């Protein structure tokens, strides 16, 4: 479980995150939704430590991330897997090496064990026979899947996905959604998903945090959205239905 408390972040004079508190639960797909520019990505970057908020705390199962020293932070990070919006695959490494990368760095596996694990992860995201291709030679959806495979290679406790299905066709989007959901349940991971895509929210969303202009506007189960009476949230939902 990840607990966010009173997080504030400003860039220059721009107050991007306004006193945000939220709980993100283990074994659930936690969604952060909100309009473009609302601060979702910045919030996620705060959680994984790429951006340091001015105030507040972010606690990973009792470990207050911002108060940890460098070594302890690294230990938390080894429990984090992240799928970036643009995948951030290493373009000098092929698909297999990308997924093997965290294993090579942090385990003492033999080459054989690494290859086994890589093939297992790639199988998990339904990617076979692409091992030797480079990221520039595979499609956007395939890249996302390699990104997921890399993120789960070390069995993370926390999985962060920044817009996992932006720019994908609806069919591939659903495949990716299902995948993330299955992995979350199977390994009992705390999964955090950042999205505009209301379809995937209704397919797999459990705990939902709605960010509006940098503040947390609403939080709850997806079943509660309709009855929330929250004007901005309802407007946001309505706009995406057709």
């Amino acid at each position, binding site marked *: 479980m990840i607990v966010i408390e009173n997080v504030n972040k400003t860039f220059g004079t721009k107050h991007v995150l306004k006193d945000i508190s939220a709980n993100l639960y283990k074994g659930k797909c936690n969604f952060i939704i909100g309009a473009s520019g609302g601060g979702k990505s910045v919030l996620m970057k705060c959680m994984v430590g790429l951006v340091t908020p001015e105030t507040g705390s972010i606690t990973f199962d009792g470990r207050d991330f911002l108060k940890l020293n460098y070594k302890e932070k690294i230990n938390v*990070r080894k429990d984090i897997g*992240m799928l*970036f919006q643009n995948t*951030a695959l290493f373009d000098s490494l092929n698909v297999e090496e990308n997924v093997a990368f965290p294993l090579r*760095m942090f385990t003492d596996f033999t080459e054989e064990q690494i290859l086994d694990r890589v093939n297992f992860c790639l199988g998990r995201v339904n990617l076979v026979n692409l091992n030797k291709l480079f990221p520039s030679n595979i499609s956007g959806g395939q890249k996302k899947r390699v990104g997921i495979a890399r993120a789960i290679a070390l069995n993370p406790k926390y999985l962060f996905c920044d817009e996992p299905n932006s720019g994908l066709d609806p069919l591939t989007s659903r495949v990716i959604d299902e995948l993330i959901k299955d992995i979350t349940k199977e390994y009992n991971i705390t999964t955090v998903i950042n999205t505009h895509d209301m379809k995937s929210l209704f397919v797999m969303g459990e705990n939902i945090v709605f960010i509006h202009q940098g503040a947390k506007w609403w939080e709850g189960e997806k079943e509660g959205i309709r009855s929330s009476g929250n004007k901005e949230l309802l407007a946001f939902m309505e706009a995406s239905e057709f």
Partner: protein
Amino acid sequence: MRFFQHFGEYLLFLKAVFTKPEKGKIFVKQIFIESNNIGVGSFAIISLISTFIGAVSTIQIGYQLVSGILPDYLIGRIVRDSNILEFAPTVTALVLAGKVGSNIASEIGTMKVTEQVDALEIMGINAANYTSLAKIVSGVITIPMLVLYAMMLSLIGGAISGWASGIISVESFVKGLRTDFMGYNVVFAMTKAYTFSFLITSVSAFQGFRTEGGALEVGESSTKAVVYSCMSIIFFDYIISQLMLFK
């Protein structure tokens, strides 16, 4: 003021770079790859340039010394000293600042803007160390070797052009090369070579690493890497010459 801020950032960057790599085996592998990129990859251009610089310097020194009063083997001696002291190390470094420096900056800059650096950080890897240390170490290993090689080739180039243009016979040229040879000059040149290779690789890696934005900024960083590397090379050339040649 900006200069001091950047310089401070540069020092902090170096502090992050010079830490123990996460996995020794991976680091060694990176060293081989980077040494191949930097060293072997620059072999051809350095061969060409140093041969021609040697050749041109022989012709120009010959042109300046056609008094008939001084013995012609002096041409060989002056060509030797100017190539060892200045041309081989400095020109090699300036050429490599363009070739290797822009390459390093754009490679790391691209990793930065495509969030590959963030991906490393999130995995718990020191990204400055992972992206830059192998490049700097490989540069410091291979560039001085290229400088030594450039020295030799420039003298060969000089002998050839002297002979081909009829300015000086190969025998006289070689006699000049062997007159009053000072090993210290080579020590001086290698000191420069090691300093320059560190400057080129570290300044360029730093420029790459501080890239923010997109493709446009990667281009800018790469240009800055070359400009700042060249400036620092010239500056340290002056300092080292002052310190080592006139104590």
